[in-house]
């Protein structure tokens, strides 16, 4: 059998050098990123090639091919998920014993497993924000017809998003892409999420990592409630009297606040003309991040974008440019505010947080310093103080792969392989 590497040309080159004729479990440490890793149903390892970190998962052919295709589809559909790089098949040990294929995914920079977020203690607000991010991700997936099948905190990665989080799908093994999901599929998916999240929370509680004020069951119930609220807002018909037409604009605003653009709205007036019914037809997530990208070229998460846009608004008012063209003011803001802050960050600290997150934190820091000083300290002064008093002491978050405990079993759910049965 011949070794087959299905991947993008650039990455194929780098992948060639790995010891594919060895079971992944036996790979020597020097190929691997020595960080704690999860116990998975399959063998999973991380490796570093040309400065990038990759996750490798050994799994039977049909599963590897399926998950690879699914992740590529999700990427095309612009779903926040890890990126599939390739599938290595036709592996054979030197004695001719065939080895299972390996699915290669690119590690998501600046992403955090939920376990890394409770290094000391998971507080209630953190839990709520993780849940919010996860619910938005599930709703986005469901809008696209994607059934997850095993949604959990463990199967998600989180990126900081202006004090909140943005959630990324990591494991698509049980996923299915349909034209449209039935209510039963959505309900079942959310029920699986509920049970998984409750289990994960109870486990954190049993380990003493969960704040006493967090109730695992209530938290998991919240997931269901929030999902339903969001889903109704995204998809349901709303009927009102013809005199209340302002409610159309209100509905669009509410969706924008939730981070969704309304590309199409279905509006129906009954025959008598007294009742108007509206339903969003096409909603696209990323309202604020798209606007920020268009205006400034800065790629940010949704809440970060909202925060930066607010700062842009404040800048517009302060510099008295309300009448100016939006693009021109945005360009001036990048040069006067955003770039000076970024220049103030020493190169060696740039792996600690993503640029938009740093800007958000500097804005917070500026507010805090100004309050103490009793007057507004400038953004540049705030940035310098932030670097010395805050950023310097933060851990590097460019590539955090596992829990913080030395023993991964201490913090992570077990997965039981079938071959251990009996």
């Amino acid at each position, binding site marked *: 059998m011949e070794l087959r590497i299905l991947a993008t040309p650039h990455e194929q080159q780098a992948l060639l050098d790995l010891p594919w004729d060895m079971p992944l479990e036996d790979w020597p440490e020097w190929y691997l990123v020595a960080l704690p890793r999860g116990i998975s149903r399959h063998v999973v390892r991380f490796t570093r090639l040309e400065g990038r970190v990759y996750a490798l998962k050994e799994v039977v052919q*049909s599963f590897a091919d399926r998950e690879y295709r699914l992740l590529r589809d999700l990427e095309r559909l612009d779903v926040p998920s890890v990126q599939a790089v390739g599938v290595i098949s036709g592996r054979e040990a030197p004695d001719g014993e065939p080895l299972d294929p390996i699915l290669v995914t690119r590690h998501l920079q600046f992403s955090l497993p939920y376990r890394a977020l409770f290094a000391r203690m998971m507080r209630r607000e953190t839990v709520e924000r993780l849940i919010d991010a996860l619910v938005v991700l599930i709703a986005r997936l469901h809008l696209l017809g994607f059934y997850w099948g095993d949604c959990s905190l463990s199967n998600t990665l989180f990126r900081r998003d202006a004090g909140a989080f943005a959630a990324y799908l990591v494991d698509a093994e049980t996923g299915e892409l349909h034209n449209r999901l039935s209510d039963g599929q959505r309900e079942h998916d959310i029920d699986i999420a509920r049970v998984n999240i409750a289990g994960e929370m109870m486990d954190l509680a049993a380990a003493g990592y969960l704040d006493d004020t967090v109730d695992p069951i209530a938290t998991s119930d919240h997931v269901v409630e929030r999902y339903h609220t969001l889903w109704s807002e995204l998809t349901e018909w709303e009927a009102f009297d013809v005199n209340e037409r302002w409610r159309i604009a209100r509905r669009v605003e509410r969706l924008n606040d939730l981070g969704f653009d309304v590309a199409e709205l279905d509006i129906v007036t009954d025959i008598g003309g007294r009742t108007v019914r509206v339903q969003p037809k096409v909603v696209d997530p990323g309202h604020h991040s798209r606007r920020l990208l268009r205006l400034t070229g800065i790629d940010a998460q949704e809440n970060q974008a909202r925060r930066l846009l607010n700062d842009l608004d404040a800048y517009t008012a302060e510099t008295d440019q309300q009448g100016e063209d939006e693009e021109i003011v945005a360009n001036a803001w990048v040069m006067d505010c955003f770039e000076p802050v970024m220049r103030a960050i020493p190169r060696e600290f740039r792996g600690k947080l993503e640029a938009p997150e740093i800007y958000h934190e500097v804005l917070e820091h500026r507010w805090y310093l100004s309050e103490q000083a009793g007057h507004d300290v400038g953004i540049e002064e705030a940035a310098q103080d932030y670097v010395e008093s805050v950023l310097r002491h933060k851990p590097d978050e460019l590539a955090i792969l596992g829990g913080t405990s030395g023993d991964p079993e201490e913090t992570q759910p077990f997965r039981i392989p079938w071959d251990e049965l009996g």
Partner: protein
Amino acid sequence: MATVTYDKATRIYPGQDAPAVDSLDLQIEDGEFLVLVGPSGCGKSTSLRMLAGLEEVDAGAIRIGDRDVTHMPPKDRDIAMVFQNYALYPHMTVAANMGFALKIAGTPKAEIQQRVMDAAKLLDLVEYLDRKPKALSGGQRQRVAMGRAIVREPQVFLMDEPLSNLDAKLRVSTRTQIASLQRRLGITTVYVTHDQIEAMTMGDRVCVLKDGRLQQVDTPLKLYDKPANVFVAGFIGSPAMNIATFDVDGERAKLGEADVHLPPAVASAVKAEGSDTVTVGFRPESLVPTSSEDVGGIPVTVDLVEELGSEAYVYGHPAGPKAEEQSDRMRSDTVIARVEPRMAPHKGEKVTFSVKDGESHFFSVKTGERIEA
């Protein structure tokens, strides 16, 4: 525990003309292990998902016991999709791992304890209830995961290709484990697979589907011995049944040099439907080498012999001057025969086989339905 009834249940995917599942009528008995099997796209997974509530039912009904669940949300159906999720939590005891889903559902504490204890007894886990999963062996951990599904005491277990991510060797040992646990529990189980061997070894009864339609539902042995149509005949059994279209000539069926006996009942049934051909099938073990004095037979040139020690299989092609014509009318271009080990013919040899008495299968060329001899 309960029966499951599909009552003309139909699923048509939007934008498609042919139903994915077409008027499925199926009654599954209380405590039965029923396997849905068929090739890709036959509707087996869709049928299971209709029962689970994941697929809409466009016509007909589905009942669990006396309850009509056709339009009920999945979580109200009292079913468990087994092995879909088998995470165990390392800081929780075995008992907590088994019972936590009940806690979420608001089951009273005393009842959770009782149900966990009952399941632990079934799974031989009683002495481990206070331990953490880490202290258990792999097999014990697996049983804890099964315990999670069992304590819910669902009316029906649903399993959708649970072994598909395993290699062939593991599949064999695991399917035995699942089947024996199901028998101990006695919970009605519906199991989906594309693998007919898995179906035959696990199911009390096996339901064969093709193109969304039920072909036959019966015990594994009946499916094997009396396939209802030519599709089931070809699908069930490994190696597959030899199937070809023969010309009817009185009480003989002939194809090239091959010549087999045709029972009178079959001959008249073929005549009655106005055909002069009939589909004939015979399993590899129904073929025996004949002596030259016997009438008729199936001459075969041996291409390959598989010696397995306990048995041997001969793979060949039809022999004789009219062999070409014969190949066109065969389901597969190979004739497979099981022969005594250590006495198998050699490659290139010509062997004439005859079919053991009463072991030929006959099917209508028009409908594909079985014709009883």
